[in-house]
């Protein structure tokens, strides 16, 4: 697919950093643009995101393990404790992942095939364990969240994401981390680990006055 296209709403040139991006926002007219095959389709207007205290922003760069990435998109959810961001990471080898950022605690994960059948939403219980090849995971937090908005490029379209979604967070003794995302059926499994701000070696961060 082409990396360059024109906004179906205003005609401005839209550049995709992620070749497989499905949804982006026109930087000029703030239209939400969804790519279907070769066509771009305007599906709505970008909703204003809430003020964000995160130091990460679009095009922040960093390193996970030994792979360099750039932030190309962001999803924001609201939940009981406020908002959290899922930063869409594009690695230099064209693979992607997600960096969750809630109250400046960071967790990296990527979509994986579930090693075993994931429990149905109603069968989730805190404390239940999953013995997977990647480690023993325990369900520690159950979060009901609502999609708030996005910016940048996403690998899927967000239209229709207005229902509350259940996220089950899993942790292992060795700081491995997993999330079961019930926004789709069957649910999606993301797996990774808790990371520290320092190890990400982030560049192009937001500046905070006085800090």
């Amino acid at each position, binding site marked *: 697919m082409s990396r360059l296209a024109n906004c179906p709403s205003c005609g401005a040139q839209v*550049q995709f950093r992620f070749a497989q991006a499905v949804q982006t926002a026109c*930087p000029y007219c703030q239209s939400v643009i969804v790519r279907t095959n070769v066509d771009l389709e305007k599906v709505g207007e970008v909703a204003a995101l*809430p*003020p*964000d*205290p995160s*130091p990460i*922003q*679009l*095009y922040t760069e960093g390193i996970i393990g030994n792979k360099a990435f750039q932030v190309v998109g962001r999803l924001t959810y609201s939940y009981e*404790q*406020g*908002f959290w961001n899922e930063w869409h990471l594009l690695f230099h080898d064209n693979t992607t992942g997600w960096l969750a950022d809630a*109250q*400046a*605690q960071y967790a990296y994960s990527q979509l994986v095939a579930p090693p075993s059948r994931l429990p149905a939403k109603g069968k989730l219980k*805190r404390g239940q364990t999953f013995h997977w090849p990647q480690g023993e995971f*325990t369900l*520690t*937090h159950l979060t009901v969240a609502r999609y708030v908005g996005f910016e940048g490029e996403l690998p899927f379209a967000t239209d229709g994401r207005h229902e509350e979604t259940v996220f089950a967070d899993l*942790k*292992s*003794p*060795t*700081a*491995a981390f997993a999330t079961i995302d019930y926004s789709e059926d069957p649910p999606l499994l993301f797996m990774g680990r*808790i990371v*520290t*701000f*320092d190890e990400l070696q982030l560049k*192009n*961060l*937001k*500046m*905070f*006055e006085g*800090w």
Partner: protein
Amino acid sequence: MQAPAQKPAVRAFACPNCGGGMELRGFQHTRSAVCIQCLSVLDTSDEKIKILQKFDNRQRVRPIIPLGTRGKLHGTVYEVIGFMVRTITVEGTQYSWHEYLLFNPYKGFRYLTTYEGHWNDVVPCHGLPAAATAGGRKAAKYLDRTYKHFQNAMAETTFVMGEFPWAVKVGEKVENDDYVSPPYILSAERDNKEVNWSHGTYMTGAEVWSHFNLPGQPPPASGVFANQPSPHQGRVGRIWKTTLVWLAIWFVAVVFFGISAQNKLVFDQAYRFEPRTAERSEASFVTPVFELSGRTSGVDVEIRTDLANNWAVFHLALINEETGQGFDFGQDVSFYSGVDSDGSWTEGSRSESVTIPKVPSGRYYLRVEPEADASAPAVRYQLQVRRDAPHVGWLMLVLPFLLIPPIVVSLRSASFEGARWAESDYAPSSD
């Protein structure tokens, strides 16, 4: 295209309860804040500020580190943005500790907790600790370290100031379990929904004062805190290792001196002493001459008697026939026995021996002068002289000096650990 760098606007608003002006330091992370003037707890999660809880005239607590103070921990600047007092009740007594919420917009949140002058630097756990046992007791394992369970208690939030990234409330209770492996502490906080684990590292008041550049002196630490590192940690093992080496050397020395000694019998003679006639006839006499050969070494003189409920003193001299040089010595011998309500008993010994160290070779004789109670019956005795006697008595004197240091260190360490665990659920006196 570069997104413009924006700083989150400092939020300023008026307290809906008292109208006092407020400014938030924790950016949009802050979900609740406490009015400095009226101490109402406010919900700041929305544009419209709501009152969560009004202050109920409980006693104000002054944080010893003022809100807004900045300090450096692990190379990162943090700002104190929240303060809370948490209280547990153990056997009817309330114990309160203070928690400071620290914030850095990049690194996030951490806590400084303090009790009786002891401090801890606390962060959320990244991994999930696993249940374990240590020495038959409850424990937790986290990142290859085992933490012994220290205390279970219900912790109630009893006072709040500043701002928090969650909806804080006075009166809120969580079940708290502490596990220790000095200098670390692992805490599990359980509410009716979830368990949150945190990991603390012991800090002294002096360290906190220096990191936060605080004026004056930190409050002195009293007692031993749960995860306070012992000044004796590691020393007990080290000193016993050193002592074992010395004991081995000592043992080799004892064996060497014992084996290398010939202990050759050079004189053996039986005598009879009649105390009743000792006044009239001279009791002192000399023995025949005997040869002490070989290197300069010890001489053992053994006196064997048939004393029964009596005593005798032997004044002896070992004299060199050629030079006249003498070694004077004396030895008491006493032996008593009987039967009383506890059964039969004995005291003393019928035989005694004296070792004279470093006697040069030559021809020697003994001058002997027994002495006893004038009314005592006759005493039969035998004198035996042995050349090159094992001379290890001085080595026995060394032994306590080898053992005292490790025993003292072990006792001090045990007393420190005793003071630590006396404050736990596992104190010897409590159930």
